């Protein structure tokens, strides 16, 4: 076979694509449909809690159209990083949605579910054997961190996908996987030049992100040969040009020239981007260097605490003229009140933070602008081991803060506008990412078990 055609349904499952675009793309006879369903971008909550970025309804809408199209054409559908973080609970959630769709639509297929959640004893053994190494800016990793994590996933490469395809899977839903491996697995399995394949996969994984002006999420299509690939948006309203396709290498990547995968590194330094029409681009010339050692990236999250918040704002020009000193006094008064109510020892059981909108809420300590405008927004944040304690503390914060005085006014003032009753908002659990490491498995499949089910 001299070429392979790849359809990327959307940049992230649940964000949507146009049904009409998918139809047009299916007319181009893709060899498979791929879609990424995950990201660490929205933060640690999704890995920490097992909750999902989009609603079940949004996943179902996208997955239904993909499964219907793939089954009608008799080609595989490959979904990676199920439901945001690709932990087992999220994988099960997407598999359940696939079952519902199959039942409602009368579809039958062989499903492979690839598990990416990691066994803590396995990781501790790997840590003791020195087979886990830190990447840049990694926090300290020890057995206590592994024990504290609510979920740890490994980011799988193409090998589990290839294994599932070779075993006849028609629909693959994977836990955490590298975005590109979803699109690279079948072409590499069929023997296409890995350099061309990985570069095409990198451009495809964000759906329509590589067009000149992306107005809404949509599909993307690539035709891959050994020497080059041609990328062309199936939506007639969209176009790619050489700069838009080259620019996509910049996105969410620390370098536009390298893409590190478990099995090697794609280097795009000598890549050529040529227009083949006013909306299609031909890409060639990248190289792929197989890795000296095969590594799997780990992602972990742990509970950081429970939070209560208060949102408020200040408009009094006299308070604003002395904002910093007023606010410093307020924070001290708040902490004194907490000590008075909850007693000695409470200091180590909570953390009080404030964000000042209109001053430095976006850049924090890095903000160099010192002016403030006619009002500022305040966000108080208490973090504690339980929601009950965080909320109890915040009730004291709210009362002390709202009446905190300035010398210019005599009598009791109300210095902060609270938009809500009650003022405090229970935010629930807050999580933190706690690892940026790679592990060396004995084989590429060792960390990823695959379940096959006849749906």
């Amino acid at each position: 076979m001299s070429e392979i055609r790849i359809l990327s349904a959307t940049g992230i499952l649940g964000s949507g694509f146009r049904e009409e675009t998918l139809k047009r793309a299916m007319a181009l006879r893709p060899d498979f449909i791929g879609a990424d369903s995950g990201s660490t971008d929205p933060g640690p909550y999704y890995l920490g809690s097992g909750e999902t970025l989009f609603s079940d309804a949004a996943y179902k809408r996208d997955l239904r159209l993909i499964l219907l199209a793939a089954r009608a054409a008799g080609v595989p559908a490959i979904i990676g990083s199920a439901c945001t973080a690709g932990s087992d609970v999220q994988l099960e959630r997407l598999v359940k949605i696939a079952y519902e769709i199959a039942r409602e639509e009368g579809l039958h297929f062989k499903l492979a579910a690839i598990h990416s959640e990691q066994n803590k004893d396995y990781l501790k053994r790997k840590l003791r054997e020195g087979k886990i190494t830190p990447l840049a800016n990694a926090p300290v990793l020890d057995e206590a961190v592994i024990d504290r994590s609510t979920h740890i996933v490994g980011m799988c490469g193409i090998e589990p996908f290839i294994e599932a395809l070779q075993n006849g899977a028609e629909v693959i839903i994977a836990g955490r996987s590298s975005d590109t491996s979803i699109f690279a697995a079948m072409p590499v399995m069929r023997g296409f030049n890995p350099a061309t394949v990985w570069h095409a996969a990198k451009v495809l994984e964000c759906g329509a992100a590589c067009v000149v002006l992306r107005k809404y999420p949509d599909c993307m299509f690539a035709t891959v040969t050994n020497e080059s690939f041609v990328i062309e948006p199936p939506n007639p309203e969209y176009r790619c040009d050489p700069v838009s396709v080259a620019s996509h290498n910049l996105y969410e990547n620390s370098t536009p020239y390298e893409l590190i995968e478990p099995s090697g590194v794609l280097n795009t330094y000598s890549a050529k981007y040529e227009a083949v029409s006013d909306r299609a681009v031909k890409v060639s010339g990248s190289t792929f260097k197989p890795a000296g050692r095969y590594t799997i990236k780990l992602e972990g999250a742990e509970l950081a605490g429970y939070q209560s918040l208060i949102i408020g704002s200040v408009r009094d020009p006299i308070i604003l003229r002395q904002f910093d000193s007023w606010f410093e006094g307020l924070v001290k008064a708040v902490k004194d009140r907490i000590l008075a109510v909850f007693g000695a020892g409470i200091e180590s059981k909570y953390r009080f933070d404030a964000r000042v909108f209109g001053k430095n809420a976006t850049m924090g300590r890095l903000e160099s602008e010192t002016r403030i405008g006619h009002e500022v927004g305040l966000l108080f944040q208490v973090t504690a081991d339980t929601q009950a304690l965080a909320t109890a503390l915040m009730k004291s914060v709210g009362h002390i803060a709202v009446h905190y005085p300035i010398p210019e006014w005599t009598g009791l003032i109300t210095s902060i506008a609270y938009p809500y009753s009650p003022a405090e908002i229970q935010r629930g659990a807050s999580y933190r990412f706690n690892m940026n490491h790679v592990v060396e498995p004995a084989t590429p499949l060792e960390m990823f078990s695959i379940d096959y089910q006849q749906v």
Partner: protein
Amino acid sequence: MPRLWQVTKLIRSKNSGPFELTFDVIFKDRETYVKVRDARIINAQWFAKTYQLKPEAVSVINYDAASAIKITIPRPAISGDIDDTDVFGGQQYGPLVDLEVPY
């Protein structure tokens, strides 16, 4: 003197994973890009000062294929951590926008 936003089509910041922040400065035309690139207007020292880092922690990469300069730094706080201000890292490019470019 023009500002960086006047000679670019996009200045953005974004996470590259939860532990790194990456900035893209994509120029409108190749000529200005080459001038700014060769004059090293966007450099590790400026980033180190603005984002309170050591210059060694700053990576500056010129990307001719897109007439772009990419800068990557360690995140000021891990994405979504209690002291993080910007989970997506999407609003950290403000100081770059009004940087003076002598062209």
